[in-house]
């Protein structure tokens, strides 16, 4: 089986550039071909030429993964309220308002029940479009409630991660969401629940170091960036160049850290198959 060429760090897009430029045509960042946007979008947001997986937001991910019209959104009554009155160059409140206006979403995660090829699941999807999918109190709370809901009903739990890590503007409260979600997963595990974690580009920091790496089965989309520390920090610390393909899905597969690297078009099938194997 031939594997697509692994990109080095320097070729990876900066973390901020999550949105694909507007226009009828766009250049694929992986193969540099001009591609027709509509064609890319109808191909699950993958390049029709080289299968490069474009980053997608949570709403699009839910649409792709679940059976048509089966998603029931939950815990939509929780709102972020700037508990630390955090101000850097701009107040957190303003940043939040801007993200909300830009995306039309309240926070960086979609949670709810739905079906994957007829199988009931509890699904959480972190939203890269909103504050880089970072872990706020609300995101942590919604994921925890989802896990608790799945525990009560013995639903398979699927979490799709895409995140810049912790939400710095909530400091210690953000950090505690790592312990909270991990502890909820311990109870889910005690109850015999099946948890499938799907890692997508990029999954980093506190999200990786909590629920993302705790799947009974861990799947990763091809060539996603997955790691704990950011490459810049690592480079500064060790004062060495990083190896080719460092912290990609394929690197983690070789390191024994993920179960399978799964292309986007196969995700639904693979998740359904795993649910069947686990007798859920």
């Amino acid at each position, binding site marked *: 089986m031939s594997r697509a060429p692994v990109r080095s760090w320097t070729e990876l897009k900066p973390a901020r550039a999550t949105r694909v430029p507007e226009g009828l045509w766009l250049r694929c960042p992986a193969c540099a071909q001009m591609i027709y946007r509509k064609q890319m979008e109808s191909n699950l947001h993958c390049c029709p030429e080289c299968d490069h997986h474009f980053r997608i937001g949570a709403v699009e991910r839910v649409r792709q993964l679940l059976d048509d019209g089966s998603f029931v959104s939950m815990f939509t009554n*929780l*709102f972020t309220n700037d508990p630390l009155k955090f101000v850097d160059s701009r107040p957190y409140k303003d940043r939040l308002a801007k993200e909300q206006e830009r995306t039309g979403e309240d926070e960086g995660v979609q949670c709810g029940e739905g079906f994957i090829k007829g199988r009931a699941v509890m699904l959480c999807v972190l939203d890269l479009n909103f504050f880089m999918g970072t872990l706020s109190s609300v995101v942590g709370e919604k994921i925890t409630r989802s896990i608790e809901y799945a525990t009560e009903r013995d639903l398979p739990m699927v979490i799709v991660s895409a995140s810049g890590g912790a939400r710095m503007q909530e400091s210690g409260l*953000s950090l505690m969401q790592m*312990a909270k979600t991990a502890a*909820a997963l311990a109870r889910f595990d005690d109850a015999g629940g099946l948890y499938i974690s799907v890692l997508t580009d990029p999954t980093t920091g506190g999200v990786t170091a909590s*629920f993302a790496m*705790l799947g009974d089965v861990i799947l990763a989309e091809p060539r996603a960036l997955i*790691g704990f520390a950011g490459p810049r920090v690592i480079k500064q*610390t060790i004062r060495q160049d990083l190896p080719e393909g*460092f912290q990609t899905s394929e690197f983690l597969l070789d390191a024994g850290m993920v179960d399978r690297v799964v292309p986007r078009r196969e995700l639904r099938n693979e998740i359904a198959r795993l649910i069947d194997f686990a007798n859920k």
Partner: protein
Amino acid sequence: MALVYTLDFEKPLNRLEAQIESLERGERPDDLPPEKDASTLRKEHTQLLRRLYSGLTPWDTVRVARHPKRPQSRDYISMICKDFCELHGDRRFREDPAIITGFGRIGSIKCLIVGHHKGRDTQEKLACHFGCAHPEGYRKALLKMQLAAKFRLPIVTFVDTPGAYPGIGAEQRGQAEAIAVNLREMSRLKTPIVSIVIGEGGSGGALGIAVADRVAMLEHAWYSVISPEGCAAILWKEANEKNNNAAAEALHLTARENKRLGIIDAIIKEPLGGAHRDPLKSADNLRKWIIEQLDELRRIKPETLPARRYERFRNLGKFTERPLPADDA
């Protein structure tokens, strides 16, 4: 009395300390007014120290927490533990000296002690990566904690790390997975766990050994999702004195702020002028708090501890909850 290493905000103390030292040597400094003697100078020194330390900014606190003379895990273990029996290795990859584990007695209580260790001399610091543990350190900690749970020994952890080590091998061997597994497994250990942030509580690397029934901080320790410098570099675009100050303030990383947010349960007093001025006193405060907590926790059925611990962490986080609209309920 003079410390080899002086923090900026402690500089006003230097002149007094020099004068006191001269008097102790039997020399009288020329600039000393005749009515002052060693005892009045010591009183002034104490007053100044009290004033300086009661008005520490969050960034000053971070610097106190990093003071090179500040007692570390190994120092506290030697001061408060009897019969410490160190246990090494994760049985998987290698021994990581950045996390110490071992059996010991605190007062009359037999327990397992786990602590980040930064190292004292250059060689030790390099071996410990300045307190930044690798995955094997976190896995060793978990292996020994599970051992403690098996024998119903309570667990005491000392947190003192700038963060988990960022390196190629650490990523390859699953730094994130090692921390994540510790968070999950510590939450369900059927034995009492108490954690104390004794110096630096840097992010996931700190939390990786701090999912406990009771969490405390020493008065001048810090605990946060990121270091002030890391935060300044990202949100203020540059880590410098001014931005680090602002970031330290914004991150609410002091013991008092963490207590206010419910992240920790208690603040353990440090001797006047910080733990580095009187390590024995600091160790004594630490020991008293640990024994008090363990005495309480030992009265709770171990089987019920995970549920209580879950509630503790379950309630952390701040947000607004509105009633669900009728059609959404």
